[in-house]
């Protein structure tokens, strides 16, 4: 009998705990890690250290913003890493016209790839994972054809974009922050954003409600391509070299991890923008912490796996 009551109480408590973990778990984890580092990691509070960490995580944050939108529609975009590579290739090819035209061409290239994926998903009805997998392979190949090996460049404007700071904060970090605010606004406050969430939550209901389902889906993939291309340009600017063979490799996995750890369910219908950013920060902080404490990379991977599983478990419980 006693056991029964205890179980009953746990049953009442459990959903609440899970709801809390799902909503604020990432924040709590980031805070806990920060606290741990403040206490046990020497030189952690140095500004230089923070800068390095933020600069490193920036491309992942930008890519995962687009990924969060796509996952919100029950989709997935595996092509983001290859889009980064394509953008890196395009930006050096067109750098002769100045950094801005080159940037525009690179971002437009990303949008075209996104449109191709989106059209396959929305109009042809190909499963997102298949459509974007094809692009993952093909676009990487295209980027390598355009720029077969690493190309260094000396355009001062582009180098400045990658390495200058405003008030001590790297420009690319500011750009990522601005993009986060924009995506947050789009998701929360625009008709388009609400339609994205609705389509992910129940596609046939959205269709019956007269939502432009196909157009919205297409747009979501275009945005993801745009953001990935931008991330590619920024990463290239920071490297001061274009490297289409290895730039953005496996970043789709990091982005998906950030989204999932942030509590956006893969089943769609919910987009958590800030939590996604927190998810990316958490993974970055985690690997930095373990490295600082001289644990091998393989440890990081295993801990990351545990966090992913925990996040998925928390998301699952709510339904």
């Amino acid at each position, binding site marked *: 009998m006693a056991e029964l009551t205890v179980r009953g109480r746990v049953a009442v408590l459990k959903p609440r705990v899970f709801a809390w973990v799902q909503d604020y778990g990432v924040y709590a984890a980031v805070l806990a890690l920060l606290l741990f580092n403040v206490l046990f990691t020497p030189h952690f509070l140095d500004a230089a250290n923070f800068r390095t960490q933020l600069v490193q995580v920036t491309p992942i944050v930008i890519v995962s913003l687009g990924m969060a939108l796509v996952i919100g529609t029950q989709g997935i975009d595996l092509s983001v890493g290859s889009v980064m590579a394509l953008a890196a290739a395009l930006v050096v090819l067109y750098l002769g016209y100045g950094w801005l035209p080159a940037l525009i061409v690179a971002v437009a290239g990303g949008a075209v790839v996104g449109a191709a994926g989106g059209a396959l998903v929305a109009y042809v009805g190909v499963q997102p994972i298949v459509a974007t997998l094809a692009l993952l392979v093909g676009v990487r190949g295209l980027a390598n054809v355009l720029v077969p090996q690493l190309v260094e460049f000396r355009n001062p404007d582009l180098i400045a974009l990658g390495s200058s700071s405003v008030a001590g904060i790297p420009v690319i970090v500011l750009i990522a922050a601005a993009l986060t605010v924009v995506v947050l606004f789009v998701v929360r406050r*625009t*008709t*388009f954003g*609400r339609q994205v969430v*609705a389509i992910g939550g129940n596609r046939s*209901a*959205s269709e*019956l409600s*007269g939502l*432009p389902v196909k157009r919205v889906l297409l747009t979501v993939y275009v945005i993801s391509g745009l953001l990935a291309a931008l991330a590619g340009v920024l990463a290239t600017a920071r490297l001061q070299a274009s490297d289409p063979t290895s730039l953005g490799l496996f970043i789709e996995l990091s982005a998906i991890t950030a989204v999932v750890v942030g509590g956006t369910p893969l089943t769609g219908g919910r987009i958590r923008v800030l939590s996604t950013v927190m998810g990316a920060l958490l993974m970055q902080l985690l690997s930095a912490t373990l490295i600082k404490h001289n644990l091998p990379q393989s440890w990081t991977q295993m801990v990351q796996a545990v966090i992913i599983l925990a996040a998925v478990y928390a998301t699952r419980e709510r339904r």
Partner: protein
Amino acid sequence: MRRTDLEPVLEARAVSKRFPGVLALDGVSLALRPGEVHALVGENGAGKSTLIKVFTGVYRPDGGELRYQRAPAVFGTPMEAQRAGISTIYQEVNLVPMMSVARNLLLGREPRGRFGVIDAAAMHGEAQRVLAGYGVATDVRRPLRTLGVGAQQMVALARAVSVDARVVIMDEPTSSLEPREVETLFGVIRRLRDAGIAVMYVSHRLDELYRVCDQVTVLRDGRVAHSGPLAEVERLRLISLMLGRDLNEVRTGGLTRFSRTRHRTTTLTSTTSSPPGPAASARLATQEEPAASEGPAVSARSGPPPRLAASARAVPGSGASVSGGASTDAPLESDELGVGVGAPVVEARGLTRRHVLDGVDVAIAPGEVVGLGGLLGAGRTETAKAIVGALPLDGGHVLVAGRQLRKGTKAAIRAGVSLLPEDRKAEGIIPTLSVRENIALAALPSLGTAGVVSDAKIDRVVEIFMRRLRIKAASPHQLVSELSGGNQQKVLLARWLAVRPKVLLLDEPTRGIDVGAKAEVQALIDELAEEGLGVLLISSDLEELVEGADRILVLREGAVVGELSGDEVTEERIMATIAEHTAVDQALADQETAVQVAADEVAVGRAADDQLAVGQAGEERGDG
């Protein structure tokens, strides 16, 4: 063909099955005897599928006993039931489309050669031989998917029967068959019967039942409403048994919240009528909450606003349908309504889709409630979906205010036609979103500027409808999936009212919601119609249909078979119309019986020829 003297081969004795919140089967007894074709009929939720699943081992009964071949039987899995000799053919063909016909037919029982390797030649030979008996003459090495649906169905049937079946259960086997293929199927059924196999035949098509079935069991609300020889039950009686309406005493006083006088009067109010739209919504906002009333239905809404009591209502005995004669009875202010009264705001013409709709015409005038009657599968839901452009059509078009509607639901909604879908969970609510966002969903583009939503506007609309429709939620921000069914339905109604429709198509608006919410929804429908909204009402609840609708179109097998208006709108007239033989049907039936035997032979032969032709036409060859 009665063989009641024989021992039943499969029998349910007082079987009960309970699901959370529902008693799906309540002491159901049914006996299947060898060599009989037993019809199982009933409306949605009557318990047919549950009973089939008990028979086939998907569910285990909570109470009662299942007996198979004179011994108590417990089937743990569908596989066990199948091994024991109970085969089932489902509505949708559930075979493996990419595998060859022969493999599908003999899956799991392939003839083996040495070392357990499948003997392909023997397999193909046997498959060819078996299928020839079902009028399917095709290259059995071809992938199954290259066959027509009918032929696939035949393969499924052949497979089911060749597993040494003693009982064959067919769940709506003809829903995707061409008439000729139906003939072949009936030939096969008769052969099964003659071979002493018991057949359970589930269908909504009464003509078919009367042609092939010997016995009938009617389920209603999880109980057996009737069981006996089919020949002793006339059509009208069968329908009344299915719908749960006693022919002799159709109630006069209703239980619904519709005002009883609706279909004898004009729906126009004398002074305050105005177009549904901004004004209607505004009025919804300002109206006081009517207090809940348990009074008789005649008083309909408690605390009706003055305009509802307007003298133009309740012109007795005119017997005129609203669309036709109403205009003569009441002072009209059609200018206020935008569209002339009597002139339909929505007109669907010749809606046609293979196997589903057969030239359906529907016209809905402002302020009119048009009911769609008919049995399950008669094409009611499909008609509604076709009108809002959610169902691809082979023919026909929809006019809104005289202009032809473009494709897609978006165009329909923009033109002012909205559908409240039957399946609230799958097609209605967005479970991950809040009440507020679910209400605002369809109206989003109009609730903001330049693509940025206005919280103030949304809050205002949401507040209006939550109060007006009395949506019970902790707050507008509560997840819609946490609400009760009735409140979810109100949220969906609010979603549509927020886009200010001219016509609302309501598909089973009160199904699965509690009594209180049901009454509220019914009262609301009535009131919206008073305000000039055109309504298409689909309901399996005959009483709801009769009391709610001004005019009723009766559908059967995808075609309108009757229109009832004025005094004709009664439960018995609806049932009679469903049961009615059209002259053509009758002639066909007569002809049928005369040349029955010959027809069977010919049909089988013809189907075989066709299959052969199809087989030769396709170049693609699977290699088994």
